[in-house]
């Protein structure tokens, strides 16, 4: 055979080895970046702990002038951001990943705390901001996915209520109590608790708009804070 046509096995082996090394480097860099994300999430968790604690202290300290000085919007926004990031982590590591499960469990506690606080502000300051506790599961519940879509969309158009999403299969005492109290069962998911009233099964957008009187609230809010809607 003409020498140039001859197969140099060593070159093929070298190419394979270098390719595998590049893959390995890619995996290491990717893994490193994700590790940092987990760290970032833990530090975010710390922030929210401080945030919620300070809010509670404010809540207890200024009993007299509670309604004037209580501003929960940054707390709410940070909670929502953690929620989005957690959803993303679920996508990266899967629902089953123990780190994700732990973070979600902790997140659900933060939500319960926020919910209680908001409820109290509602009662003491005669606000009536709607509070929705949303029970769902990632495990074989198509309607839950749809319900999630509807709630996200609803908030985008009417940012006038709070949603607290609770994964049914998480196991902690606070959640267990809530499930017991509202009679939440797996086969009846998704379930919404709207201002104490329990709604089983998928709720479409229009019925939620009506139930929460969102059109009226939107009109009022637009009149009161026109700068928010420019």
């Amino acid at each position, binding site marked *: *055979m*003409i*020498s*140039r*046509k*001859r*197969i140099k096995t060593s*070159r*093929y082996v*070298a*190419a*394979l080895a*270098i*390719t595998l090394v*590049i*893959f390995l480097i*890619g*995996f290491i*860099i*990717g*893994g490193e*970046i*994700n590790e940092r*994300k987990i760290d*970032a999430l833990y530090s975010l968790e710390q922030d929210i702990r401080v945030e919620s604690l300070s809010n509670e202290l404010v809540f207890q300290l200024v009993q007299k002038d509670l309604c004037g000085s209580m501003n929960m919007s940054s707390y709410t926004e940070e909670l929502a*951001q953690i929620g*989005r*990031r957690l959803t*993303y982590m679920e996508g*990266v*590591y*899967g629902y089953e990943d123990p780190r994700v499960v732990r973070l979600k469990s902790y997140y659900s506690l933060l939500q319960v705390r926020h919910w209680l606080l908001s409820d109290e502000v509602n009662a003491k300051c005669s606000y009536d901001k709607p509070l929705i506790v949303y029970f769902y599961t990632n495990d074989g519940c198509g309607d839950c996915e*749809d319900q999630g*879509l*509807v709630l996200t*969309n*609803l908030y*985008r*158009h009417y940012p006038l209520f709070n949603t607290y999403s609770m994964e049914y299969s998480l196991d902690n005492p606070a959640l267990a109590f809530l499930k017991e109290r509202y009679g939440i069962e797996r086969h009846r998911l998704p379930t919404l608790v709207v201002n104490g009233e329990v709604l089983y099964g998928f709720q*479409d*957008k229009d019925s939620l708009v009506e139930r929460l009187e969102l059109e009226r609230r939107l009109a009022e809010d637009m009149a009161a804070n026109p700068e928010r809607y420019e």
Partner: protein
Amino acid sequence: MLTLQDWIIYLLCFVGLFTSVFFALTILSPHKMRYRRDQKFRPKVSIIIPMWNEGSANGERLRKTVESLLACDYPKSKLEIIIVNDGSTDNSLNLANQYRVHGVKVLSYRKSRGKTHAVNLGMRHATGELVAGLDADSFIMPDVLDKLVPCFKDKNVMAAVPSIKIWNPRSFLQLVQYQEFLSAVFIRHIQSELGAIPLAPGAFTLIRKSFIDAHGDLRADSMVEDLEMSMRIQSEGYLIENVTYANVYTSGVKTFRAFVSQRLRWFCGFIITVRKYNHLLHPRYGNLGVFILPVSIIYILLTMGVFFYTIAMLFYNLSRWLWEVHLVGFSFKDIFEFSFDPFLVTIDNTTILPFILFFVILSFMYYIKTVSEEKQGILMPFFAFNFSYWLIGSLCWVLAIYYYIAGKSIKWGPNYFRTRP
């Protein structure tokens, strides 16, 4: 957690990176300039220009082609130019006859028989030791013959290929073709190092006349006569040489329709010819048999896979979006409103590897630009190609495979070519 999409990306990156690394190693392995220009080695060369209806613009394209040959550095006494009129219905023949004063021979078919027949007719009348075809829409640089001819000092070399590029690409389609041709120049540069060029394009590939005399002329029943000839040379165990810095320019097709039907013919012809010469897929034929041809086939399969996966994902996402619209109604607000959180950007191997691959391929293109002494810019074509070819290229492949499986015939010039024997 690896999804199907991850697996597809990994597979593509693995094949892409492996071939790239292998190419890089081939470039880096020491090789010397094999053939020096030689004033004494000057065999006679015959160039055949097949033409059909070149009358528009007063034969401007033909004039450029012939003049580039007349102006070339090769001794005139050793250069024979033959124009073959393939039954043109306009005044092409008269235009061609004007060049007789320069010693150009003119042959003519009364009725069009197709390009391959025309080139074969010219080759039968050619008196040169080396022959080449040159389309009437192409032209050569003056030193091309001086660079190509010395290859034939090696008795094993049966053909020598120049770099074929698009001249002055303007439209989007031409930019895409520019990059397509440049990639081919790069790949042929590598294949040449491995003694494994599967395709010596019809545009100005010099062929030893004695090979044609011994093994037959271009197969007029093949829709890719150049590929068929190249495979025949490989099959006989000879070498096809490549001279990267010898430049021939062509204009490329103008319309999308012509673009698709040209690739349909090339790709379908590739399938047919590779099946015909499938015995080449064997270590006996060196790097061609164990690497170049298998990788081409793997690429075709991957292209198919990616195409159908992309289409499926498109439909999947569309149906999901429609379902979402069904649930919450349509609103422009939902489409245009998004917030950016860097945390939500995934950087892992499925983003890192394609990124690496992208830059490796771009650097290959700069390498080949330098080696092939190319003056035109390559960045615009590179992006035009990467933006569009994954779709239009694979669309052409899907069509080609469909034509092949359905046994539909393909039209080229005046002839229909069967995709099944």
